[in-house]
């Protein structure tokens, strides 16, 4: 892919999935997924447990391989080629439910690792960058501690800062607040909201409906590996059309 057609493709579309299918053994986990995410768009994905939400966003940065269909991320066509995949991963940041910080490295080292080794950034520059993002997520004072010494909410904010240090053009979040105590959920959501306000392209798997209403451009409801319904947040919550969406919302909006 040359530089020119890549920039042309990225001008409007950040992620494009066409006819994507994925099986775990015989189990059909993603079925004919079509999804287009425009640059700067914020997508929230929700749905019952086991519906394929994680599988879907993990296909976007090739943590899972899809078996058929086409995925284009940031103008790069996904293939099995390692170099292609690494190229995509450098442009796509991901935040996990379990934080996945590296426990043997300090907070600062967690953040400088990828810029230093993947982007070959000089150490001082990488550290300055990391401190800037740690300030953004409001924990610069924890820079020299180890992940195990931080609260869950702080760890998740570090995970966001770590991803941002790679200057990603797209951010994926897989239930970033689901393993946090209630009082820590807000501090993480605040960071995500401010990120959204700056125009970051975001795909967020979450059941935080307040967040969806506040920042999402579109809400996608999944069940049994399929996209069931897709709508603007207000319409999605007040006027769900599909039976399964209604049932799901009646469970979580009690």
């Amino acid at each position, binding site marked *: 892919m040359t530089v020119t057609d890549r920039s042309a493709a990225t001008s409007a579309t950040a992620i494009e999935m066409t006819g994507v299918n994925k099986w775990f053994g015989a189990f059909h986990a993603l079925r004919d997924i079509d999804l287009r995410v425009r640059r700067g768009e914020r997508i929230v994905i929700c749905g019952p447990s086991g519906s394929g939400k994680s599988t879907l966003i993990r296909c976007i*940065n090739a943590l899972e391989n899809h078996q058929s269909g086409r995925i284009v991320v940031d103008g790069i066509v996904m293939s099995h080629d390692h170099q292609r995949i690494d*190229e995509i991963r450098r442009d796509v940041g991901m935040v*996990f439910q379990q934080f996945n910080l*590296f426990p043997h490295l300090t907070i600062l080292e967690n953040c400088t690792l990828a810029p230093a*080794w*993947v982007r070959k950034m000089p150490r001082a520059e990488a550290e300055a960058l990391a401190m800037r993002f740690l300030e953004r997520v409001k924990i610069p004072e924890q820079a020299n501690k*180890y992940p*195990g010494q931080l609260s869950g909410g702080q760890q998740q904010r570090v*995970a966001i800062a770590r991803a941002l240090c790679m200057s990603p053009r797209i951010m994926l979040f897989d239930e970033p607040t689901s393993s946090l105590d209630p009082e820590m959920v807000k501090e993480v959501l605040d960071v995500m909201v401010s990120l959204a306000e700056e125009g970051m392209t975001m795909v967020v798997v979450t059941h935080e409906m307040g967040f969806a209403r506040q920042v999402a451009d579109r809400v996608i409801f999944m069940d049994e590996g399929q996209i069931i319904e897709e709508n603007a947040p207000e319409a999605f919550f007040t006027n769900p059309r599909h039976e399964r969406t209604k049932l799901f919302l009646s469970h979580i909006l009690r």
Partner: protein
Amino acid sequence: MAGEDATFLRPAPIPPRAPPRGVRGPIPWLRRNLFSSPANTVTTILVLLFLAWTIPPLIRWAFIDAAWTGEDRSVCLDGGACWAFIGAKINLILYGQYPPAERWRVVVVAVLFIAGVVPLAIPKVPGKRWNVVYLLIAFPVIAFMLLTGIGVGLRHVPTDRWGGLFVTLVTAVFGIVISLPLGILLALGRRSRLPVVRWLSAGFIELWRGVPLVAVLFMASVMLPIFLPPGVTFDKLLRAMLCIAIFYSAYMAEVVRGGLQAIPKGQYEGSMALGLSFLQRMRLVIMPQALTVVIPGIVNTFIALFKDTSLIMVIGLFDLLGMLKSATNDSDWASPSVPATAYVFAGLIFWIFCFGLSRYSIFIERRLERGRQRR
């Protein structure tokens, strides 16, 4: 409260208090740890009786009745340890048949080795990278040239004249240095996604693990020459060293694999999502954690390797133990206490090295522990 009345309201906050003072001093300690219950008291008394029964004769043998100096067997006939024998044979024990005029070369190599290892072992000393380069590249070349005399215009000393503690250390260091990286590669291979790599690694590991080391050494000594073209020789010591290194890399692979299995999947995914390449993921994220988890297992394997170097005796090489054993055949020193002294001495030397390794690994573990608190 709860039993009588289900409601409760704290009337006033409870201020924090200091913890109760523990009972300190030697007598309470003894009472708490050695005589806390009838069973504990009986055990303590039995152990004390056992020590009283074994320790004094041992001290009498090793120190009081021992012969410290002397020229031949005549000083070693009254039953105590014959340390005079060790003194008389010390050069043989240290260097084997290495020509006396050339022994300085062994000493120089030992000094060069210590000069590389000590700064590496002390965490505070900077420049670890150059230290490793020196130890893994420069030192082996220098050591090889000095010890054999090849390429530096010194007298050639073939390896069949090498022996004693010198050969024990050469074999052990070689085995340790080869077995860890090779073990890591095999462990990664055994977990590879490519079936061929996986099968080859597993086959290699199981092959070496399934055969006794003595059998491997015998095979290398008698069978390898059959396969090599006539005229081609393969140094016997090098063969033995390779056998030990490869044999233990199979064990090391399983230790490392245990460490890899202890690393949560999220660590792989977290590092993948950042765009790190496979080698970067392994080197920067996975291995530092996996190896830390299995430090006790790694050191355990090193210690086993160190002690098993004495098995090279079976193919006619003389390590520390082999040298001591052959020295006891000297008719000038024919005395019942000489073999006992020789084996106790060999055991003591092995024990000092292995205990040192063990203490060092505990030091490193503590250090790593201090750095990061567990979740």
